[in-house]
């Protein structure tokens, strides 16, 4: 045979599996067997890997022949035999199916710390993680460092919580360590609930051991012997891989009694969340683990002093914990050299919305938003105009075009009225109505409010009702001022972070797109032409060729006309779905 080593990696994160990754992997296995190739290599493996970020191109497959990597995109099972024949057997990679330059541009500006092994290793194989240096950090900590040294190191690294609030991780650990008590807990918050966010899911699906290792180090530093991963039940693949990883770690005595002879007893339980967004709030999460309804509790006392069952508890986000092993392995200085002065390291974002390249990205803190949208993201789809990026999901805010050069870090985004948040990044274009965007997020937070405190339960409902009437063309003079006042009052009076941040999308869109609100209320117009109640469709007689495409597309029978004669649209029947507008090739359907 022509080569010594062959490795095939098929993306099988949730995205990869949805695109058919399992079938692709099976096809590779069958082809290799069919051609009798396994025996011919010194080392031959085909296996699954977690998410590598560029989900839009799934199924992504790496074929590595003697260290020479070729990445294929959009692979389907029926394409596999050709890859095996031409690339592996004949040494000619199938150029037309290879990823193109934009795939490399997508990755060029990224620095993968947390995602370093995601997409490279089989997440169900602890050996693959160990081979790449996994659990070395835990071993180092347990054998060489004292708890205080580890905390000092984490403090020095400048790592801040990646769940949204950005609290310094080392300070949190230190507070929990100093809290009196024999029983302490480490909780990994994997209750990722922001619409469009999938950072934590991808980390656990791609490399669950990095999170477990981070938890072991946290437990040692804080003095905890029990850990929980609170994870959404809606993440079945992540849960399954996490459980496999926990079992494997137990077998290797990386969890359990007297871990690696160090004297540390620590084990981790998996607790499934029942799909409530508010359970990502740490006190609600604690209540949920305790078997209560997930409703937040007042702080202080903070969980580091009185958390799960009243014991000192550290709650860290998935990404925060996954950073820890890298910091221990490569040093606090190395980590601190990434990012900006106050926001060290990297941040994983789920880039979605109207950009060409959607997916999971990891960037060093401090790079301009413009680079993310226009380089990594490849710019706006279909040549449309950029309007804003919504960061931080329903608790965040939007960043308009003239702020595109803002550096992505905690403080800079906060100054703009947006937040880093847990890492959702939704790109909006000229077709998105900002009043409607605010309405969308308020609808989400309102229906996810736990109902405990009045401002959140009733206040967000009233915000939503006002936004609703504005998008329906029923806005009143004074509505903008009322939105502003009520938003401020809700922020000041709500009990937990959900209510305190729920009005942010309203305040932020009002700050940058007040004119859109005014147009809705005063002129009864939606500048983005997105709010159905405020738009009308008509057919231009001059431009219509009478092709009949719009007539066939119309689900309401509102369009009539003879072939090759200009068609007519009956406004009384029109449901404003926009189907005619989308199908017309002659721009004869006018949207106003």
């Amino acid at each position, binding site marked *: 045979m022509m080569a010594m080593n062959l490795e095939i990696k098929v993306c099988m994160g949730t995205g990869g599996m949805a695109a058919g990754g399992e079938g692709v992997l099976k096809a590779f296995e069958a082809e290799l067997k069919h051609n009798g190739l396994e025996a011919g290599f010194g080392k031959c493996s085909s296996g699954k890997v977690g998410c590598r970020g560029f989900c839009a191109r799934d199924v992504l497959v790496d074929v590595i022949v003697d260290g020479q990597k070729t990445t294929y995109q959009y692979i389907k099972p029926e394409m596999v035999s050709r890859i095996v024949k031409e690339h592996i057997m004949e040494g000619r990679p199938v150029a037309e199916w290879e990823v193109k330059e934009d795939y490399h541009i997508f990755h060029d500006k990224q620095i993968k710390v947390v995602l370093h092994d995601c997409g490279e290793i089989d997440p169900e194989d602890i050996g693959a993680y160990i081979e790449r240096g996994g659990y070395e950090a835990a071993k180092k900590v347990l054998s060489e460092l004292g708890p205080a040294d580890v905390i000092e190191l984490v403090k020095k690294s400048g790592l801040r919580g990646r769940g949204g609030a950005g609290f310094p991780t080392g300070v949190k650990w230190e507070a929990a360590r100093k809290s009196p008590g024999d029983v302490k807990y480490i909780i990994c918050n994997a209750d990722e609930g922001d619409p469009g966010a999938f950072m934590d899911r991808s980390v656990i699906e791609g490399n669950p051991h990095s999170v477990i290792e981070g938890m072991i180090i946290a437990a040692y530093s804080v003095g905890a012997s029990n850990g929980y991963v609170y994870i959404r039940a809606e993440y079945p693949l992540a849960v399954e891989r996490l459980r496999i990883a926990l079992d494997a770690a137990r077998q290797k005595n990386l969890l359990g009694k007297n871990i690696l002879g160090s004297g540390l007893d620590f084990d981790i339980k998996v607790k499934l969340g029942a799909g409530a967004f508010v359970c990502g709030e740490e006190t609600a999460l604690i209540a949920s683990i305790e078997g209560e309804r997930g409703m937040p509790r007042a702080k202080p006392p903070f969980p580091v002093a009185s958390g799960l069952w009243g014991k000192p508890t550290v709650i860290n986000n998935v990404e925060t914990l996954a950073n820890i092993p890298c910091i221990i392995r490569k040093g606090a200085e190395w980590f601190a050299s990434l990012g900006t002065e106050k926001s060290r390291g990297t941040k994983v974002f789920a880039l979605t919305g109207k950009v060409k390249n959607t997916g999971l990205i990891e960037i060093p803190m401090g790079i301009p938003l413009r680079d993310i949208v226009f380089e990594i993201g490849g710019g706006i789809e279909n040549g449309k105009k950029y309007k804003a990026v919504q960061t931080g999901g329903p608790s965040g805010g939007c960043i308009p075009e003239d702020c595109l050069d803002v550096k992505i870090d905690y403080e800079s985004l906060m100054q703009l009225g947006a937040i880093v948040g847990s890492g959702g990044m939704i790109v909006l274009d000229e077709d998105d109505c900002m009043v409607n965007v605010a309405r969308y997020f308020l609808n989400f937070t309102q229906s996810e409010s736990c109902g405990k405190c009045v401002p959140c*339960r009733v206040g967000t409902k009233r915000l939503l009702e006002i936004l609703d009437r504005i998008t329906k063309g029923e806005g009143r003079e004074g509505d903008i001022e009322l939105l502003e006042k*009520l938003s401020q009052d809700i922020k000041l009076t709500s009990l937990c972070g959900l209510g305190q941040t729920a009005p942010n999308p309203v305040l932020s869109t009002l700050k940058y797109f007040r004119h859109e609100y005014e147009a809705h209320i005063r002129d009864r117009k939606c500048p983005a032409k997105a709010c159905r109640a405020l738009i009308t469709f008509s057919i231009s007689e001059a431009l219509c060729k009478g092709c009949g495409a719009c007539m066939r597309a119309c689900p309401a029978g509102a369009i009539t006309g003879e072939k090759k004669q200009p068609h007519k649209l009956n406004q009384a029947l029109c449901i404003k779905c926009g189907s005619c507008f989308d199908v017309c090739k002659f721009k004869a359907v006018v949207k106003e």
Partner: protein
Amino acid sequence: MITLTIDGKKTQVVGGATVLEAARKLGVYIPTLCQHPKLTPFGGCRLCIVEVKGVPRPLASCTTPAAEGMEVTTSTPQLEGLRKTVLELILSDHPDDCMTCEKAGNCTLQELAYSYGMRENRFRGERRTYAKRDANPFIERDLEKCILCGRCVKVCKEVQGVSAIDFAYRGFQAKISTPFEHDLNCEFCGQCVSVCPTGALTGKGWAKKGRQVEVNEVDTVCGYCGVGCNLTLNVKGNEIARVTSREDTWNEGWLCVKGRFGYKFVNSPDRLTTPLIKKDGKFVEAGWDEALQYATDRLMEIKGKYGPDAIGGLSSARCTNEENYLFQKIIRAGFGTNNVDHCARL
């Protein structure tokens, strides 16, 4: 002890006390709806917010532990404005039916709306509507008037130890519910009714019997059992409109289903008001002296004829310990028999 300053006045409280408790100790009024002195703090109504020096946002005084050197301000134009917004939000989802509401005149929400001068409402919008249900004869649940203060849930769990109700659903649709939305089927102690600050929970028998201003409050002791809880009969005319219990009594205002709801017999026409003696096969009304003399004579006659062991005494759990003691004494020492028992042992 912790020393803190509230509205410029210094006070000392024990560790673990809340800012609200410290303020009350000083006699400083802070409005509340969800807080109840006998229940753990909830922090849901947000009316008790205060400013604490060095903290950028208002804090709920009912859940904030008092800390050494804390400087608290309980009323500023901003705080009052925020309280007004919160009240306005509550009222925007509350029926405007104080005119016919059972609770009018004895309703914390109504009092607050009055003292804050709530009239217009900037937030009028959708209101929750629920059909009335529950076939039980004791507790009326009008969930449209519920402000989700959680007091009923807490009293049921923390005091009664039953947990018959809890929060259910999310967002605007959040409500207090029984398991699986079944009809309320608990022990009907009515503790929830006693702590409800609005008209959401009332007694089924209370309807149209009299507003608080019309009733005469008569303190008495419950005769249902030997525990002897303090009752306050709310009497209008010569009829009991409802039964309540004062918080400053030994039973702390807590009652059971009998004491709270079992008062209908008082005005029942079937109720015995004099002793009856059976004469020629028929009960005939008699005076107390006559009845007691008759009982004494007959008991002594039986004892003389058949001996003391022909007599037995059975007493009731409705008697007090002291009464039960006296009863066994009269049976043992008076009649000379040990044939004495008590219904609670059966």
